[in-house]
């Protein structure tokens, strides 16, 4: 991937690290001089992706979550990667309201939230190996 700047963060899939991960990505994105609004969008999307790793990929066992972020001009690309259980049918998983955890509140909207708050979303997954979520946002696009 082409970039002007990049970073990689690895952390444990503990729920207390979700807000840490979100802050790290937001602090990195700060060099694109976003608005508070744009930062909030990124944080919301990263939270959803990280929560999915914690809950679905590692099912509350402790695994390692990797976040990579790349900046190119006014574009930030964020990858959230786990080596957890993977997704059988990615297309189906990405549909609004689809969830494999019916018990939870507001279930099945994670990918929809990522899609709504970011400009691009790609998901690559191999069952038994893990999942990569790649999200892109153009800063300053709607100003």
């Amino acid at each position, binding site marked *: 991937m082409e970039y002007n700047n990049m970073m990689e963060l690895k952390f444990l899939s503990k729920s207390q690290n979700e*807000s840490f991960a*979100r*802050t790290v990505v*937001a*602090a990195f*994105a*700060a*060099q694109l*001089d*976003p*608005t*508070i*609004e744009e*930062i*909030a*969008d990124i*944080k*919301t999307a990263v*939270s*959803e992706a990280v929560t999915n790793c914690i809950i679905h990929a590692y099912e509350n066992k402790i695994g390692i979550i990797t976040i990579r972020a790349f900046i190119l001009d006014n574009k930030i690309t964020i990858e959230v990667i786990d080596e957890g259980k993977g997704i059988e049918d990615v297309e189906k998983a990405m549909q609004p309201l689809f969830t494999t955890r019916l018990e939870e509140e*507001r279930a099945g*909207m994670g990918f929809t*939230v990522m899609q*709504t*708050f970011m400009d691009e979303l790609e998901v690559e997954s191999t069952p038994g190996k893990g999942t990569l979520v790649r999200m892109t946002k153009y800063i300053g696009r709607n*100003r």
Partner: protein
Amino acid sequence: IGEIRRYLRDNTPIRVSRSLRDIAYKALQVRDKLVSENSKEPTVGEIAKELDLPSEEVVMALDAIQEPVSLFEPIYH
């Protein structure tokens, strides 16, 4: 230096969590001020400049007052 630090520690055990919230509320005030001055949304850099802080710090502080994410409703609306 040691004396000064001990003095500060004994007298102002202010937690980072509290100071982050202070910075965040100041940041939101500055944002409102800049919005009414320029009638457009300021960037984090513009807010940070007013507060004389690095952008990263402002972003970190704003996270400290982040409310639970509500669906489809951007957080600072």
